[in-house]
């Protein structure tokens, strides 16, 4: 093993630059969202923005430490780290404190830590290791068992903590399974089609959809009457789709709990319960929508400052950006995220080691999922699921976990020639 004196050699400068941009924007946004008239300093540590500064600084230190660690450490210790984080997830069920109905926090003195945030990282490590180890090139559904277990265990534990939002993040790993060939492309398309049908079912009467599909089938059957085999297959597909539509409707109407139903209902119909379940979304859209083209200006946001938007420093941080920096500012932020995501994917693709590649894709998938759900919910495209916007939202665990995640990959990438 060669000695590594220059830890920062081959570090991807663009990624680091994007990271620094995002955390800075985050800090400023938390300041704008939570500013207290009596504590106007950005470095007032009694306030969230002061704390956020501390979190960012310590995160950067953590990132530098990650860069100094021997690159072989990560594949070697991935299972141990994964095991450790599973233990923490179990421990939090017994010793954790409950915040917002989720028993997912450890309180150590003034600091609150959420093990689930770190579980994403450790799951990515374990997932990378296990796919790296599966020497077989075969990508059959049988090969899917082990990766599914790796993903499933933390999801189960996080569900037990009643933290549905974070558990859903693990769905992001579907992307890496697709990339590595475990899941065929048609399955992904099928998934998208299923989501499309799902939304359609909620918007319309299920019998109209079933009727329309049946009508299409009858027309196709007449057109294809010379090929009875295809007609037969189409008939089976029709049965499957109609069953799905019916099940979705039934699930929504009968099985979903009222509060879950409302979260979906408020998305579909803007006017649903804007004082209750729809309040967050309605206020969030007002804040963003009132920003206009160029925004109201730094610290000039009225909707966020006067507390109309709930969770304005954490999950709804995008409202502050939308209100104060307008369409242009929002677009710049979205551009930064897209650049970072694509950059990570391109970096992952150039890895020699399957471990590094899978890990890179895991990082991109998780970041993408957070980006999709968080911004999507503030502008009313996705149901309200309480997960933070990476690097931007207030919160030590989130900042630390994503920084460790990102810098581990930067480290892996910087030593891509050493790792096979």
């Amino acid at each position, binding site marked *: 093993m060669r000695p590594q004196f220059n830890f920062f050699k081959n570090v991807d400068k663009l990624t680091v630059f994007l990271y620094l941009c995002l955390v800075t924007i985050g800090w400023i946004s938390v300041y704008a969202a939570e500013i207290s008239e009596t504590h106007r300093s950005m470095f007032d540590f009694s306030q969230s923005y002061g704390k956020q500064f501390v979190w960012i600084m310590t995160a950067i230190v953590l990132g530098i430490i990650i860069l100094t660690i021997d690159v072989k450490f990560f594949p070697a210790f991935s299972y141990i780290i994964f095991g450790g984080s599973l233990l923490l997830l179990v421990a939090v069920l017994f010793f954790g404190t409950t915040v917002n109905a989720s028993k997912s926090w450890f309180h150590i003195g003034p600091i609150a830590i959420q093990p689930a945030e770190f579980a994403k990282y450790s799951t990515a490590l374990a997932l990378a290791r296990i796919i790296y180890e599966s020497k077989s090139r075969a990508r059959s559904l049988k090969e899917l068992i082990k990766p599914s277990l790796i993903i499933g265990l933390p999801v189960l534990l996080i569900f037990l903590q009643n933290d549905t939002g974070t558990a859903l993040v693990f769905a992001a790993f579907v992307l890496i399974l697709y990339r590595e060939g475990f899941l065929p492309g048609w399955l992904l398309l099928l998934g998208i089609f299923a989501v499309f049908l799902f939304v359609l079912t909620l918007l319309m009467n299920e019998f109209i959809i079933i009727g329309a599909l049946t009508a299409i089938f009858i027309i196709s059957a007449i057109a294809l009457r010379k090929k009875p085999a295809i007609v037969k297959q189409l008939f089976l597909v029709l049965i499957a789709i109609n069953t799905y539509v019916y099940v979705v409707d039934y699930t929504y109407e009968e099985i979903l709990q009222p509060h879950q139903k409302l979260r979906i209902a408020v998305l579909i119909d803007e006017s649903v319960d804007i004082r209750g379940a729809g309040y967050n979304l309605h206020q969030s859209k007002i804040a963003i*929508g009132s920003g206009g083209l160029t925004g109201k200006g730094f610290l000039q946001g009225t909707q966020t400052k006067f507390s109309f938007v709930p969770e304005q420093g954490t999950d709804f941080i995008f409202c502050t950006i939308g209100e104060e920096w307008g369409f242009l500012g929002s677009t710049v932020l979205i551009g930064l995220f897209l650049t970072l995501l694509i950059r990570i994917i391109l970096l992952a693709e150039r890895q020699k080691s399957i471990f590094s590649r899978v890990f890179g894709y895991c990082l991109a998938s998780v970041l993408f999922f957070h980006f999709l759900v968080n911004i999507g919910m503030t502008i009313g495209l996705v149901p309200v699921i309480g997960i933070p916007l990476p690097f931007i939202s207030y919160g030590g665990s989130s900042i630390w976990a994503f920084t460790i995640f990102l810098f581990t990959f930067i480290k892996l990438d910087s030593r891509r020639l050493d790792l096979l």
Partner: protein
Amino acid sequence: MLSPHQSSELSSRRKNVIIFFIILTGLIFIVRLYFLQVIDHRYKIFASSNIQRVLTDYPARGLIYDRNGELLVYNEPYYDLMVIPGQVREMDTTEFINLLGITRTQFENRLQSARSFSRFRASVFERQISMNTFAALQEKMFKYPGFFVQPRTLRKYPHPIAAHTFGYVGEVGPADIAREPYYRQGDYIGISGIEKHYEEVLRGRKGTRIVLVDALSREIGSFQDGRYDTIALAGTDLHASLDLELQKYGELLMQNKRGSIVAIEPSTGEILALVTAPGYDPNLLVGRIRSRNYRMLQNDTLKPLFNRALMANYPPGSVFKVANFLVGLQEGGITASTRYSCPGFYSSGGITVRCRSHPQPVNAITGLQYSCNTFSCIQFRNTIEQPKYGSMQNALTTWRDHIVSMGFGVTFNSDLSHELPGLIGSSELYDRIYGPRGWRALTVISLAIGQGEIGTTPVQLANLAATVANRGYFYTPHVVRAIGHPDSLNPEFRQPNYTTIDSVHFETMVEAMYQTVEDGTARFSRIPGITMAGKTGTVQNPHGENHSAFIAFAPVDDPKIAISVIVENAGSGSAWAAPISSLMIEKYLTGEVKRRWFEQRILEAEFLTNE
């Protein structure tokens, strides 16, 4: 099994699919944001309605003083509980409804009706909350977001007099709001009397303040440092021409009677007293008790809401001889020296008008002094049968024009509300009744003694007295003498209205009216030490006892007060209306009434039952 080459090609395709999804998501976000932030302007409006609350500062309504600076109408503070439904959040409803003493259903209903009015504008939730409730609420207001207390004022009257003249104030209706956008739901507006006529002066100007509120409806500060705020401007005070003491005395004298007293200062047209009996306490028509009391007064058989002084349409009877003699003198039907002897009746063409016995013969002065019907009929006929008119129609029209120039048959268009014009028979009217050739002087001879197709209001009769006092002209009778400062006289009524009669003829009538009091029909009402001119009237009433009427002014050479009194169903003018006038004049000119027994007789009289 795939070859490595195929595999890498597949991987590259998958990478591109993933990148495509990421970029697609970003683009969908940007398009959505474009719609939210740039195209759709609703959110900007939502945002301002979220944080801005427009508060109205209600100015105090102008006060009303009497001519001597005595306070007649003032404001009493009270509080309305308001609600902005859009800002109501979850709260302890049980505690809230217990504080207000309302039921849960009432709570829900009121909130619902406020919501249907507007989610973002304030509605009245509970009107005029008591001081106790206000004190209890004030401490807990922060617990009830969306509710706030709005200070308002109510009219208050220290003396329960002149209710008709003041009029009353009520909540604006949809028609008021449609007519004048100044008004908002829940505002008050003058509905009758001075309150109505001087509404724009009295109301002042509402102020608005835009304050910023946070999600819990707490006030954060003013919007843009108050750039859009307007300051409430208090209403302007009015100085009524009424004399508090005289008005009070008039109402006292008219107790248990039906009728009216109108007293005018001839040199200005200012109304010193405007009494309608029976009346009511103006404090009854205030605030939330108003509609209930209004219904009660409306159902009262004595019709206390009916403003007799301005609206009652009485035939004037002999009082009207003053006007008729003036026309006769002006038109040459008689001269000051024309004399006739009276046989105790006037009879011509089958029509007989009775007279009473009095010294003979009579002229314009003594004819009035003794109220001779014979002389009145002869002079009226002489006047309108003069050949110079050419036709009966022309003759009557000429007569009528003179009468109208004295303020009869028309309204004064003054600041008196609900004034009625009365009626003076016209040729058109008689043409309609009898046909163009179907009537002559004898047909309308009853006009000579103020009966028939003739109706006058008490204020018009008082104005006749004032016109004679002025020897030929009058100022429009009005009840508000000055606006704002007691010296800034009401500019509306500063022009004298000249009659079409020369003042020399008025001198004749002044003398006649003076003699009426000195040694005529009104001699029992002479006031020691004060010269008074007057004319009695006994109005024939087909429905019951005659109405007692009197007009007068005093002192004769420097008139300070002109008056008309009508007491319904009381009998002769000399018995009741004249003594009341004389008491009023004594009270006004000397400040006190010395003739106790004379006063006592009036106070004890009661004329309500015999209709």
